[in-house]
């Protein structure tokens, strides 16, 4: 466990060693606010809640999370520091977990810094803070899911740009899995059961159901399994590709 903590600390600190942390957080906060006010009609709706704020999180994450995850392993492979890391007395698992948790925590920090939205809405009216808390949890879980995908794809390449693009595509497909667009395209090709199964994999549906304020065990389980699955894949990919 102390190894996971050591890798976590190093990785977390490395975000702040470069302008990356600052740039990411500022852009995230500006966009999150801008989307909520302009597109979400935060004021015009005349309702004291954060629904228009959280509604755009999936789309924000779609581009911002891959920017966070792309360096996780691609950079280590490019610089050769992976050889250093993997010949220290740490297991593959400790490395995968430490790095993922650091990135997830960083995303959590960015998310937590949106607290002025919460203060605003409490100042303006009397929102259901339980729903808001649930939506924050849902948003954090979704960020974890995106990050786990990004970490795995980052391990598959030495190029951060390729890792970024693949992660955006993979996350987009998972977001849209249940949408009419994908369902219609696949409708003629696949049996209904498979389409339903694919639709149930959609990040969007699960996030939206938590964001409504209902923390259903199935949604938690969904995000937990997604993160677990992609982290296992991350470890496998890393083991195969680390020395290429």
């Amino acid at each position, binding site marked *: 466990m*102390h*190894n996971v*903590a*050591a*890798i976590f*600390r*190093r990785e977390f*600190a*490395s975000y702040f*060693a*470069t302008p990356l942390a600052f740039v990411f957080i500022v852009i995230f906060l500006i966009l999150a606010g801008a989307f909520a006010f302009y597109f979400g009609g935060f004021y015009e709706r005349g309702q004291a809640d954060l629904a228009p704020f959280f509604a755009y999180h999936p789309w924000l994450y779609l581009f911002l999370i891959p920017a966070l995850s792309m360096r996780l392993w691609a950079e280590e492979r490019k*610089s*050769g*520091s992976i*050889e*250093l890391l*993997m*010949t*220290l*007395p*740490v*297991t593959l698992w400790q490395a995968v977990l430490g790095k993922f948790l650091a990135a997830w925590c960083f995303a959590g920090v960015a998310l937590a810094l949106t607290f002025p939205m919460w203060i605003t809405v409490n100042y303006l009216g009397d929102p259901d803070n339980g729903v808001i808390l649930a939506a924050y949890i849902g948003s954090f879980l979704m960020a974890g899911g995106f990050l786990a995908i990004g970490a795995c794809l980052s391990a598959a390449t030495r190029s951060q740009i390729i890792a970024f693009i693949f992660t955006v595509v993979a996350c987009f497909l998972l977001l849209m899995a249940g949408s009419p667009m994908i369902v219609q395209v696949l409708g003629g090709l696949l049996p209904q059961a498979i389409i339903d199964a694919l639709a149930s994999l959609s990040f969007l549906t699960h996030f939206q159901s938590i964001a409504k304020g209902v923390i259903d065990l199935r949604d938690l389980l969904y995000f937990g399994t997604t993160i677990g699955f992609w982290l296992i894949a991350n470890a496998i990919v890393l083991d195969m590709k*680390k*020395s290429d």
Partner: protein
Amino acid sequence: MIEISHLTKRYGDFTAVNDISFEVRPGEVLGFLGPNGAGKSTTMKMITGFLAPTSGTVRVCGHDVQAEPLAAKARLGYLPEGAPCYAEMTVRGFLEFIADVRGLRGERRRSRLDDVIGRLALEGVLEQVIETLSKGFKRRVGLAMALLDDPDVLILDEPTDGLDPNQKHQVRTLINAMARDKIIVISTHILEEVDAVCNRAIIIADGRILADDTPQALAARSPSGRLDEVFRSITQGARGTPPATDAALEAAAHA
């Protein structure tokens, strides 16, 4: 002790390391010699557990590197080729991280950090970001990392590559100072290095061991007593290059 037995690494059809076996005992400084692409780095990566061998085994201090990687890695200090580091960290931050991962605590942690920082003269750059350091300092940071836990076995992949003559001398002095009670394996293609620090040399080409002897005995194989001539005749002979190449080149130069 390092025990290597029938170690082989294949990439598809290409055999990088072909059935090599040898042992290294404490007090030995083994020079791993060979042309570029001979399989030196691949062998070192298998000794340190970074690469899994296609077949064969490596035991470090009695621990099979594949079966008990953590126990083996805890006894190993490894400087990979080019001394990769976390470039955005400070020297102190980097060494503290290595100390964390190696589980160094309390008094021993302090004394080990002081020891490597002093030994490699890093006091003046502790708060500097590694990226901004000169090549010589980066290499010293890498060596400090490898030495931090006072390992029984040191694997150094081209530790002096790209350093200036003074820096090379410093690294060699350092290796000589540690040679007595450790196992040190150094890969290099610089022959003078073998004379300067090693008490045993293995010449490898095309993934096979071609010679295994003391540097003096190896040098004595050539009428001129020069190691580079022995190296050339052994490694080029293995590749099927006619030994006359040099003579032909010389003749061409004269013409």
